[in-house]
């Protein structure tokens, strides 16, 4: 037998068995922590951009997120996410003019506003539809839109109603 390589082989095999025994108690957490320390984040096309401002309305808040732009050949349009919460505090019909300043890099011209209107059904599973009038020309208007795309939708996620308004231009 080639002793040095055989010893190495058996040592590695023994350590492998040890690793297998330690995984549920120690190593799984170590690996998981290591992965989280890499500073990774879920694609904002799914999660929405970071929150830049919160506007206080009558009994509820409107969150304005930073614009999300597609990577490489991603087929979605760039969009800005707005969210209304809590759903329980929302009136039956929402018609808000939202100042989206800060969501898109401002060029200092024109109104940075959107008029968003939608009904808030009592049934959490009822379909939602939204109308968006783009007072800011960089945004696309939306007419009776449900949830056809990640970049163009209204959806209820837990206690929040999310509206994503597509931008006309690429960055």
């Amino acid at each position, binding site marked *: 037998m080639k002793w040095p390589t055989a010893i190495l*082989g058996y040592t590695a095999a023994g350590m492998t068995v040890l690793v297998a025994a330690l995984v549920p108690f120690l190593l799984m957490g170590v690996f998981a922590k290591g992965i989280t320390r890499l500073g*990774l984040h879920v694609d904002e096309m799914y999660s929405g951009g970071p929150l830049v401002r919160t506007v206080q309305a009558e009994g509820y808040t409107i969150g304005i997120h930073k614009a999300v732009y597609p990577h490489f050949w991603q087929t979605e349009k760039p969009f800005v996410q707005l969210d209304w919460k809590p759903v329980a505090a929302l009136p039956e019909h929402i018609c808000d003019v939202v100042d989206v300043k800060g969501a898109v890099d401002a060029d200092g011209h024109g109104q940075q506003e959107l008029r968003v209107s939608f009904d808030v059904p009592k049934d959490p599973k009822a379909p939602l539809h939204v109308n968006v009038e783009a007072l800011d020309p960089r945004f696309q208007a939306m007419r009776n839109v449900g949830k056809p795309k990640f970049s163009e939708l209204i959806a209820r996620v837990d206690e929040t109603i999310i509206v994503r308004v597509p931008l006309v231009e690429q960055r």
Partner: protein
Amino acid sequence: MGEATCKVYPGKMQPRSWGKALLLTLPIALWSLLMAMHGLTQPQRAQVIASGMTAAFMIVLFFLMMKTASTYRWRRWFFVALGVLFPIGFIHNVMVLRGSMGIPIEEMIAGRTPFCYLPIPLLILPAALTKTVVFPGSILPGGGMAGGGMAMMAGLWLAITLVVGKGWCSYSCFFGGIEEGMAALPKKAQWKKLDPRYRLVPWAVLLAMVLLSLALFEPAYCMWLCPFKAVSEYVAARNTVGLVQNGIFVVLFAALVIVLPVLTKKRTQCTFLCPFGAFQSIFNKTSVFDIKIDRAVCSPCVLCQKSCPTMSLSDESIKKGETLLSCMKCGACVDACPKGAAVWHIKGTEVSVKPERARLMFLYAAWAMATMFGGSIITGGLKTLLDFVI
């Protein structure tokens, strides 16, 4: 005549005594009970019974591996149980939570898409280049059905992979059991001549899917080609594209997981499509365990080649005394070889020097992982079934 059929070759491991087999099973028995402890202390009767049944199942199978010195046929019981019970538990859970196997867009936005290991190779390039994970799940625990998050699944995958290499595909993959079960049904293969060049297809699929996932910034395999979407969950079809995607999942599942395994007695999805399997093959280079063919003993009867469920032995590789990179260490070739020429091996040691020691060390590691990961899935599926009965 009796002598001719019962001839004992010196290299072939013989069955053990009950006592020795029991003694060798003891560590795994303790491990299985430790893993089942959480379930055994739950207030729900179904959970307690399911945990107990799983522990007993894993212990009995390991004992039979020790007693008979055969690996493949006992491992197959575990693997098929895993493959069958995973969809039962999983589909039941998604139906209870959402009432559908389709993942609604709201769940993706909330980062609650359960994460399986198949997209791992597709996420590496986007993550490396942009620090972005192109999967609608959560990185930290809290998202996903099991609440584990992607980091937990990735950590678990990495740990098991370091231990068993491509053995993942035989001891941890909760999809492969369905086709292995289908392949076990017929006595003989109807289609015996399979072009060995098809073995390269998973590598081509892997390359294409990795590049597409980077370009489109989405897990392309999950969106377009994964046959197991048919028995887990899929993106809820909101338009024609969605319908086409779901159609592809069903056709691929029917062809590669149901029909072709019955016709060929091979794991056809794993052999001819799975990009994760191709990716996992790379880790056979880092794993310390492998299978070798002892050229001094081998008379090329090619029984090993015929028995391999993933075509991981070729004439050339047998001549070299090796398996191909795609070997998933299921042990089929070792069990099939009448002369004991196909042997378990630890890298660095000489071939056929104490191969049973290599087998034992591999099996302790692999079965410990299988009990921890697969065992919990089997328990989940059993509990679902028991909930209907009790």
